[in-house]
């Protein structure tokens, strides 16, 4: 990291700079005549789109070229922007990503494990991880994430559970951690990194919901600070960049050149400069003003929690959950609210907020909603959210209803996701699939955690869960049959 910093400083680079943004500004002044792509030619060829997005936006939508560098092989302004990002995040190297954090997560998995190699991961990984396993043929070893029965949410991995998985699978290549989870739960990342390294494994961190960890004083430890080898950081979530932009960070143990090769296997060769400049400018914002900004976000979240808990019935949880293991720390910027005490499922409150009160929250599951607070929020909007929750309780609240309880359903992995995905299969009505091996994904979205993955056995318990979640209005995705009446299973 010191070496990076020295190099960055030697080049006259500092966090006040935004090399890609500056290059775009310079480029615009050059008034270059475009006989290249994109074909809309600074928006002139698509006036309706220009009217919608604005002329500036269309003028910035340009192609890779010498003055603007190339994301597939950065040598100038993109390389500088990546250096600055690495410095800001305390990483050995940073890669700007334009395929969402999905692409960053998949690049981590593809960098760490190949066909038939094992990777240790919690069951509540994002669907993008499962996709990467289908692509590379690695075999998942699941660690049961602990769960909170009262709240009905998955927690972090216990260090002991990770240790057992590592000892039972000494040939595994990497340990994968979600930190924080969608709900804001953190594992004991430092101990997990240490364990992994002691056994010669890499530690990969899905930090999609933790960009702000790098820029906060009272926040949980970030992946790079904990010594992890790779981290996928969703700049567009809490960091303020455009949707679909993201950053992949690596520590000193990996070769940046190899990771770049892996990224280039699936990355577009026409990276959007709208996304790249948004990453560049957001990194600058975070580096210069991130600390004060996130201190304000934390304050707002604490206030909202206090007010929501005052309504009665709702439970907006926070650090009091911390237990030193499966909830090693809690991300206080996350506003997760448990709703079952007012007799409504989280997904029902989620729908009511949108349909009755014009408020869109991030997601609702069976027992919780999550309101995403970030650098763009205003106090008056927090007041609206709290008041609406109070009204929902008054107008729609029921006594605590017995909602279905679910234990962690341990997946039975019969074969690798890749093998199952490409094997001969047949579509059966959902209820007839018990005992068969599933060949596709089934996700409850959001938050996009797999209920079933290719290569896993379908059980009666799972079928019951799927039917219940469907009835409650959760959005289920993944299967070839969009109505999820049928499921693809391996031919016997």
């Amino acid at each position: 990291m010191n070496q990076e910093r020295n190099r960055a400083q030697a080049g006259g680079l500092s966090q006040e700079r935004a090399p890609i943004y500056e290059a775009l500004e310079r480029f615009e002044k050059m008034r270059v005549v475009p006989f290249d792509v994109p074909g809309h030619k600074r928006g002139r060829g698509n006036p309706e789109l220009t009217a919608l997005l604005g002329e500036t936006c269309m003028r910035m939508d340009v192609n890779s070229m010498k003055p603007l560098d190339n994301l597939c092989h950065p040598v100038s302004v993109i390389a500088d922007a990546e250096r600055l990002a690495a410095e800001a995040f305390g990483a050995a190297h940073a890669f700007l990503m334009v395929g969402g954090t999905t692409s960053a997560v998949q690049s981590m998995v593809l960098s760490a494990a190949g066909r038939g190699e094992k990777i240790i991961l919690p069951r509540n990984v994002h669907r993008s991880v499962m996709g990467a396993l289908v692509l590379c043929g690695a075999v998942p070893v699941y660690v049961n994430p602990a769960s909170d029965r009262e709240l009905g949410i998955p927690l972090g991995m216990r260090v002991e559970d990770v240790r057992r998985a590592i000892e039972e699978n000494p040939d595994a290549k990497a340990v994968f951690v979600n930190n924080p989870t969608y709900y804001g739960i953190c594992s004991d990342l430092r101990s997990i990194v240490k364990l992994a390294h002691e056994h010669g494994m890499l530690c990969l961190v899905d930090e999609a919901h933790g960009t702000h960890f790098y820029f906060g004083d009272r926040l949980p430890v970030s992946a790079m600070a904990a010594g992890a080898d790779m981290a996928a950081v969703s700049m567009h979530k809490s960091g303020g960049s455009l949707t679909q932009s993201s950053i992949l960070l690596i520590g000193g143990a990996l070769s940046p050149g190899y990771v770049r090769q892996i990224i280039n296997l699936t990355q577009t060769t026409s990276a959007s400069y709208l996304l790249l400049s948004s990453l560049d400018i957001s990194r600058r914002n975070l580096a210069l003003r991130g600390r004060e900004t996130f201190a304000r976000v934390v304050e707002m979240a604490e206030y909202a929690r206090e007010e929501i808990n005052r309504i009665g019935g709702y439970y907006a949880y926070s650090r009091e959950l911390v237990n030193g293991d499966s909830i090693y720390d809690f991300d206080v910027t996350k506003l997760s609210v448990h709703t079952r005490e007012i007799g409504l499922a989280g997904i029902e409150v989620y729908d009511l907020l949108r349909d009755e009160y014009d408020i869109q929250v991030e997601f609702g599951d069976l027992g919780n909603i999550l309101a995403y607070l970030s650098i763009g929020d205003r106090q008056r909007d927090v007041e609206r959210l709290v008041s609406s929750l109070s009204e929902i309780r008054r107008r729609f609240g029921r006594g605590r209803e017995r909602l279905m309880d679910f234990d962690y359903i341990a997946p039975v992995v019969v074969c690798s996701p890749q093998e199952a995905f490409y094997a001969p299969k047949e579509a059966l009505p959902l209820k007839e699939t018990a005992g068969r091996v599933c060949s596709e994904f089934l996700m409850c979205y959001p938050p996009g955690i797999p209920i079933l993955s290719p290569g896993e056995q379908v059980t009666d318990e799972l079928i019951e869960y799927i039917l219940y979640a469907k009835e409650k209005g959760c959005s289920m995705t993944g299967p070839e049959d969009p109505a999820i009446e049928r499921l693809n299973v391996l031919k016997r």
Partner: protein
Amino acid sequence: MNFWFSENHTPNVKISIRVDRQIYSGKSEFQRIDVFDSPEFGRFLTLDGYMMLTEKDEFIYHEMITHVPMAVHPAVRQVLVIGAGDGGVIRELTRYTDIEHIDMVEIDPLVVEVCRQYLPRTACRLDDERLTIHYEDGLKFIRSCENQYDLIIVDSTDPFGPGEGLFTREFYGNCFKALKKDGIMVNQHESPFYDEDAEACRRAHKRIVESFPISRVYQAHIPTYPSGHWLFGFASKKYHPLKDLNETKWNMRGISCRYYTTTLHKGAFYLPAYVERMLEAVEGGE
């Protein structure tokens, strides 16, 4: 000297008032506050460049938002006023000796301070001993109130900016909860004339209709507000604004007004056909 205050009423329409001099300009945590003197309208107050009141026509707004519910409800004792930092509504309310207590919730202390200093004609009763001023977000204040008030007057700014929370369904629902079982809520209801205002008007009406069993709209003519044609909402749990109007009782009080009369009260609920249709369309669940 050619010194004019201009406000856009739509992107294509603007009204200008000749200004003698600017009396005050300041910026609070919430908004920019300006006070001017003008030859035609006397002293006037603007927030973020939007006209709030002029000395010449403020009586129309303040009389109509206050006396209409006061002539209907038989026994108003506890009143909540949201917004109203200029003190005009308070001035009208304090003319009723049988009101026991008024809570006024204004988000911006600087508005009150500026009005006390520069607009004494409206702010003149802000020291009434029955009045408690709370400086906080109206939406937040009312969240914890239940079965407390006979009358709520929502003297909001526009449905954008700091006042936007006062045009939401959660706010009207909270008002319903804060009122006693025969309580009345009256609100500033925007104008039906220009498209954008009319849309705000429709939205507000829809949300009130969903929250209260009785919801009617009445009008007044306010020269300095966009189009000059302004509406108020009358939402109520029990009393009908016309059937329960007690003209004799109100006239016996001997409150003299420059705009409001009990005869005008009745007339104010008879709306132009296009406004009636607009409101009916919303009531029909469109």
